[in-house]
C-alpha cells in the first residue's frame, strides 16, 4: 500500500513539475516587450536691446529708460538740434525695429534718421549688431521743448510691415 502511494506521488510530482516549468516558460516568453524613446531638449535664444547716448547738440539733454529716450531742448535760438542714440543688440537673435514712436510737446518738428521701421540689427558679435539713429529737432525759436522717442523691437522673422 505504501509502495503504491509513493509511486503515484512521484508521478504526480513529475507531472506538476513539468506543468509548472512549461507555464513559467510561457511567462518568460510573454515578457518580450521594449520601449524606445526620443528625448528632445530645446534651448531658446533671447533678445536684449540696449540704447545708449551718443553725441548731441549743445542745450540738448536726454535720459534713457528702457527703449524710450526722453529729450529736452533748452533752445537759445531758432534752429536744428540733434541727439544721437546707439542701438545695440546684446542678445542671440537678430531683431528688427518694428516701430519708432515720437511724442512732442512745444510745437516743433522731430524726425528720426539713420534707422527706421524694418531696420535689422544682428545679434551680438555679428555685424551690424550696433546701429545709430539721430533724432533731429527743428525748433521755431527760443524756449524749452521736449520729446519722447520710443523704439519697439521684434525678432527678425516676426516683423510686420
Amino acid at each position: 500500500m505504501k509502495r503504491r502511494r509513493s509511486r503515484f506521488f512521484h508521478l504526480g510530482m513529475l507531472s506538476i513539475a513539468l506543468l509548472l516549468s512549461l507555464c513559467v516558460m510561457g511567462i518568460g516568453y510573454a515578457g518580450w516587450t521594449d520601449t524606445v524613446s526620443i528625448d528632445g531638449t530645446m534651448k531658446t535664444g533671447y533678445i536684449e536691446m540696449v540704447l545708449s547716448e551718443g553725441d548731441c547738440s549743445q542745450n540738448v539733454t536726454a535720459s534713457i529708460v528702457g527703449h524710450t529716450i526722453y529729450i529736452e531742448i533748452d533752445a537759445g535760438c531758432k534752429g536744428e538740434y540733434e541727439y544721437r542714440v546707439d542701438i545695440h543688440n546684446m542678445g542671440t537673435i537678430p531683431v528688427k525695429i518694428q516701430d519708432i514712436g515720437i511724442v512732442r510737446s512745444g510745437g516743433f518738428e522731430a524726425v528720426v534718421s539713420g534707422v527706421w521701421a524694418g531696420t535689422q540689427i544682428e545679434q551680438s558679435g555679428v555685424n551690424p549688431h550696433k546701429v545709430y539713429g539721430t533724432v533731429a529737432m527743428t525748433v521755431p525759436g527760443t524756449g524749452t521743448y521736449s520729446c519722447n522717442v520710443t523704439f519697439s523691437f521684434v525678432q527678425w522673422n516676426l516683423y510686420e510691415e
Partner: protein
Amino acid sequence: MARLRGLKRQVRLGRWLIIALAVVVVLGSLGVAYGYSSGTLKAGNMMAMACFNGPFTWVVSNDDGKVTSISPYGAIDPGDDGGGTNYDKWGGQSSDDPSETQTMGVECARYDKDVARTTAWISCDRKEITVLVENAYPSYYPTVFFGLKNTQSFSVKIKSIDISYDIPELTVTFDGVAVGDVLSSGQEVTGRLGIHTEQSARQNSTYDVKVKIELVQKEKSGCGWWYWWYWWQWGHWKWWC
C-alpha cells in the same frame, strides 16, 4: 485475486500517465509554438529576451548643416546645405532655419538666416534618440527623421506612443509610426518628429520633449495558460502579455 488487483492498479496508473502526458503535450506544444515564433530557444539568445536590440537605425536633423542620404531613400533632408544666406551664426554646422515642417526627401521653406541649430544622435544601444535644439525662437520649425527597424526574428507591434512636452509653448508633430502598426521581421519604417516653437515660448529657457514608443511582440497566443488565467482574473493583460 491478487493478480486482478495488480491489473486494476496498472490500469489506473496508465490512465494517470495518459492524462498527465496529454496535459504536458498540450502545454508543451503551446510553448514550442511560441518558441518557434520567437526564435530564441537557444541558450545564447536568452540575454536578448528583454529587449529588441536597438530598433533605431538612423536619425537625421534637417538643420545640422549637411544633407544626409540613407539607402534606399536617398537624400532625407535636401536644403540642409550648411548655408546662411543673410546671416550665418553656425557656419557649416547648420543651415538657413526651416520655417515649416519638412517632408522627407523634399525641400522645405527656410528663412534667409541661420540663427538656430538642431542636432540629433542615437545612443550606442540604438534605443534612444537625443535631439538638441539650440538658440530657438518663435516660428523655428526643425524636423528630425528616423528609421525604426524590427531587428528581431518575429513580428512586433507598436503598442503605444506617448508624446509629452512640458509646456503649451511648443507644438510637436509625430508621424510615420502609429499605434497598432506591425513591423515584420527586418522591416523598417521611417518616422518624423517636428517641433514648432510657439509665440508664447519664453526667452532664454529650456523645454523638454519626450516621445516613448512601446513595442511588443505581435503574437500573444503563445503566452500559455497564464495568459488566459490573468485575463480571467483581471480582465486585461499584464506586462508579460
